[in-house]
Every structure is written in structure tokens, then in C-alpha cells.
């Protein structure tokens, strides 16, 4: 079991012939992801890595191959358009890796996806990996291992750091999911947590948040009300100066809202242990999870 996709999911890669798209498409193929098609306008008819047919449009790719999910590597100015193209072609799960997508574009994409019942992960995210089964995105698979811990995070490399520590401690993962650091994202903590709650394989959770917004506060309430499994959290940016953008567009602390202290307080109030350092996540998980 996994969330949002699985070993059998047929995947389309948009921007498959670009520098990043081709590199990561190869890496996904190596891991066993079932990539059935690629899209690059003007490159229709080519074959990628000797086996993946390339199409000019997502509609052609879906019609010919039955692709169910898409991973997007197109440049920021074209990313929102690519998301809509995938949705219009009948894709139901879209992962947008692209960083730097204008927020206004995402505001306009959201109702388009809602009307078509499409789930978006990202933008500006590392995607997800279901260890031992499939990968839709750019996470390094050398650090993952199949198991029972779900990982959901707003970060990229910080997620890798935590997953690496879990694996080294012998704690495998059910699904590792990066939701992205932008202000407007398709799948938020609540969506991910709801999916993990329904996943029988996931028996513990690590939530990695960061400053900005109130997603962690709302996640804390949701976990308290709906999740029966042990959860440990970590919040990055507790020492960030207010009003400064810390790389992620979402990571701006202003006016006292969205600080790490607020988030840690909300999590603690919901009975969720918060690790002060990444290295404390595994010990905290062991404290509350007998199987760890």
C-alpha cells in the first residue's frame, strides 16, 4: 500500500527531453517507475531511453498509453499551463517539480483542477517515493527503505536528511512525500495526513514543517482528531529573523503569525512530540512507538 500512487501506476513525464526532465526520468526508470510516455512539444515521435514514446501533447500521450499520473519538469513560466494540460488530458494525479512558478498562475490553476477532480502535488516539491515500488519525482532512492513510517514534509533536502536517519536506524518508510514550500500548493498537510490515515501500511508518521502560514497548526488539530498512529514533528526556521524570505516563498515570518514557536506550541498541545533537532526525531519516535 502507498498513498496517491503505487507500483502499477502508469506515469507520464512532461518535459522529458529537457535537462532535468531527462535526468530524473532515467532515475525514475532505474527505480522501476512505470513511465509509459513523455511529452515535449515538437519532439513527438521520438523515443526516450530506447523505450518511452514521446508525444507532442499530453492528450495524445494519455490516449495512446493510458497514463494515469504525470510528473512535470517544464520551466516555471510554462508549468501552470502544463498542469492544466495534464488535467485536461484526463490525468488524475499531477506532480509538479518545477520551482519558481508565479503564485498568480497557481491561484488560477486550482479551480481548474477542482472542476476536474485532479490532485496536484507541488509545485516546487521533490515529489514522492514509495520505497521498493515507485518514485514520482526527484528524491534520492539510495536513502529510502520499505517500511511502515510515512514522511510528509514542506522541504526537500531536509526530508532526505530525516529519511536517511530513519533508514540508518532501521525504520523503513511507507511513502515519503514532499508537498513543497510555496504559498499555494495542491496537496497540503491535511490532504496528505488524510491519505496516510487510510493507508494500512503506514503505522507511524514524521511531519516536517517550516515557518510561514498555519499549515502545521491545522495539521496538529487534524492529527489529534483523526490519526490513531504515533506522530513526531520537526519545524525548521525557529531562529529565522521575521519578515525575511528564507528561500521558500512560503517561509516568511511576519506579524507574529507562522513562527516556529507558534507551530511547536500547537503541535505540543495536540500531544505531538516536537524534535528540537533532526537527530532527535528517531529517538522521539522510539519513545512513543513500540514497534520502532
Amino acid at each position, binding site marked *: 500500500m502507498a498513498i496517491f500512487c503505487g507500483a502499477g501506476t502508469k506515469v507520464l513525464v512532461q518535459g522529458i527531453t529537457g535537462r532535468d526532465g531527462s535526468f530524473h526520468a532515467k532515475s525514475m526508470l532505474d527505480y522501476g517507475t512505470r513511465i509509459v510516455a513523455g511529452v515535449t512539444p515538437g519532439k513527438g515521435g521520438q523515443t526516450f531511453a530506447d523505450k518511452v514514446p514521446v508525444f507532442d501533447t499530453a492528450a495524445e500521450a494519455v490516449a495512446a498509453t493510458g497514463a494515469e499520473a504525470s510528473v512535470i519538469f517544464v520551466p516555471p513560466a510554462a508549468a501552470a499551463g502544463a498542469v492544466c494540460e495534464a488535467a485536461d488530458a484526463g490525468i488524475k494525479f499531477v506532480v509538479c517539480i518545477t520551482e519558481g512558478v508565479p503564485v498568480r498562475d497557481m491561484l488560477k490553476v486550482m479551480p481548474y483542477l477542482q472542476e476536474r477532480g485532479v490532485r496536484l502535488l507541488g509545485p516546487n516539491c521533490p515529489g514522492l517515493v514509495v520505497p521498493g515500488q515507485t518514485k514520482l519525482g526527484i528524491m534520492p532512492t539510495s536513502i529510502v527503505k520499505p517500511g511502515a513510517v510515512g514522511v510528509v514534509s514542506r522541504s526537500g533536502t531536509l526530508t*532526505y*536528511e530525516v529519511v536517511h536517519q530513519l533508514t540508518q536506524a532501521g525504520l523503513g518508510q511507507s511513502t515519503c512525500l514532499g508537498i513543497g514550500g510555496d504559498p499555494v500548493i495542491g496537496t497540503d498537510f491535511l490532504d496528505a495526513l488524510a491519505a496516510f490515515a487510510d493507508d494500512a501500511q503506514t503505522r507511524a508518521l514524521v511531519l516536517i514543517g517550516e515557518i510561514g502560514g498555519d499549515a502545521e497548526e491545522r495539521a496538529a488539530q487534524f492529527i489529534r482528531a483523526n490519526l490513531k498512529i504515533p506522530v513526531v514533528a520537526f519545524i525548521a526556521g525557529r531562529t529565522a529573523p521575521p519578515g525575511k524570505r528564507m528561500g521558500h516563498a512560503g517561509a516568511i515570518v511576519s506579524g507574529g503569525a507562522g513562527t516556529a514557536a507558534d507551530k511547536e506550541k500547537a503541535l505540543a498541545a495536540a500531544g505531538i512530540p516536537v524534535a528540537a533537532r533532526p537527530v532527535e526525531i528517531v529517538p522521539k519516535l522510539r519513545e512513543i512507538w513500540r514497534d520502532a
Partner: protein
Amino acid sequence: MNIHEYQARDIFRRHGLPVPEGRVATTAAAAVEHAAALGVPVMVKAQVLTGGRGKAGGVKFCPTLDDVRRQAGAILGMDIKGHRVGQVLVTPAADIAAEFYLGMLVDRRTRRPILIASAAGGVDIEEVARTAPEKIIQRQIDPRYGLLDHEALAVGLALAAGDLGRARQLAAALQKLYVAFMGADASLAEVNPFIFTPQGQGLAIDAKINLDDNALERHPEYEALRDLEAEDASERAAREAGLSFVKLDGNVGCLVNGAGLAMATMDLVQYYGGMPANFLDIGGSSNPEKVVKALSIILADANVEVILFNIFGGITRCDDVAAGIIEATRRLDIRVPIVVRLTGTNEQEARRLLAGTSLVPAETMDEAVKKALELTATKPKNK
């Protein structure tokens, strides 16, 4: 990117909001000339990229040209929360019968633009939100249709307590503000206050816009709005090099790949009692050019006593990064020790490369931070 009030006023004016005329001066003499042309009384307003100008004495009512000379002289050069005032805006003073707050921003929760408005205008809206949340009206806007007439009028009526003349002007202002917000690719657009004169005329007498950095490329005209004087020299160099960088006050220079890990590294430096000199995300690249640029920006800070690399090699290979660091250190004159933590893909190869150098290797984040602090005058805590 933040822009000045007078720049935001221009954008609002282009979108049809009723913005009074205003002129910018860099000297007291020029301010007097503008005031004479506009006619006193005027307001003289400091143009700085921070809030709280009024409280800091940066906004003054000037009934006479002598007042303008005196007040502009005092405000120019003033320091407001670390920002030096280089320009003042001179604008006709208006009599105020009522003040409102009108704002547009992005609601992360509903993933929609959201209108925020209040009849408690002219004061800090965050303060109103804390002390009197019932005075704040919020309404999500469906970007497929924009702010519809009846929606805008409903907000106007609620704000104006039944005064239809005011309600209609507020509604029109909100619709124009929404169009300006979306058209400008803003992350925040705010009029505080929107006032009514005793004669019933609505005026947007203050303006604030934050622009979405991700959208700057499709607005080439915004580059001209950037206040290079107001930007820290190192932050400017980093921006031009495509690095995500924030200058801080400590002595530990940090180079990290990924924003989340970079923040977690800063946090860890402080956990052990140190102070980071900066936030810097070098991104996924192992390109030596980028490493050289990042190092030179950090080394320009005289406070830096040690440099800490924290790299998680995922897709990026650690040996590539190590080669980039070694190459960079050859090309730069480096006067401080460098601690390097590389974990992930090909970390063994990376460690072999670093073995022949003066770079201090570390295996974990915690070990790297502790080693870095030991190389400074800071006394580490939480050992």
C-alpha cells in the same frame, strides 16, 4: 520584492484607484518646491521599505513651506528600523472624515485570493486582527470570475454602515484593487487608509505592494523599481548570482543545499550557542562557479570566523560537490577554517577527496556545527 509607497501609488493610479498626486524629493529644497507646486498643506512621508514610519516620526503634516523645509530636512537621512531614508513623498494633505483598511492577499488555506477590509483603518491591521477580529471582513475571491459587483457592494455596505455613497466608492476601490493585485503579480496589495473627505470624496492616501519574486521575469519594468540603495550589498550580489541569501549578524558562514536544510542548519548553530552569519541555499548544483560566488559573498563579511558547508547529496553527488569546494578554495584567498559535512550519494569518494586538504570533514550535521563552533571564539553549549 518590496517596493516604495510612491511606486505602489503609481500602480494603483494606473488601475483607476483615486490616488492623490504626489512627488518624490531627495532634498529638503526639492520637497519645498514640490509643496509649493502642489499647494500647502502637504504631508511629507519617508519612503522606506518597512512599516511603522508614522510611529518613527517619518510622516509629518506640514501646513507651511517652512514646515516642509524643516520636516523634510529632519526625515531625510533618518534611520527607521535600520533603513536610511533617502527619499520623501510630498502629497496634498486631505481632511479625513473616515478611514478604512482595504487589502488583497493570498490565502494559503483555500488557495484563493482573499480580500481583507476593515472600518478600523489607518492603524496596524495585524493589531486590529489581534484585538478586535470582529472588525475585519474577509472574503475569498474566485479567480475565474474576479470580485463580482454584488460581492464588492456587500463588503462596501458592511464597511460603510449603510452609507450608500461611501459603500459604492469602497466597492469600486476594492474591485480596482483586486485587478491591480492580480495584474501586478502582487503577493500583497494594501490601501491603509482609504479615506473619505468631509465632502464625501474617497481617496487612497497610502499604498503598499509586495511583488511575487517568482513573477519578476514577466514584468521587466519592475527591475527599475528596485531600490538598490536599500538592499544590503551582499544580498544584492547573491540575488544577481541566483543564490537565495539572507544576511544575519553572527560569525558562522553557512552554505547549505536546500532551503529547509539551510534553516535547520541555522537553527542547529543557535542550538549549540553560536550565531549564523547568513542563510544561504546554494541549490542543487555542484557547479564550482556557484560555490566560488557563494564563498566570496560570505567572506566579504568581516564577522565570519568559520565556514560551514552542510550538503545532503541526493541527486547531487557528494564527490562533485567536494570537487567544487576544493576548486573554489584554490581560487579564493580564504582566511578562515572550513568545515564540510557531505552526506548521501558518493560520500566515501567525497571524503577521500577532502582528506588531502585543509578542509575539516564531519559526518553529521551536529558534528559539523560543533566542530565549526570550536573553531570560533564562541563557547558552545548543549555539548
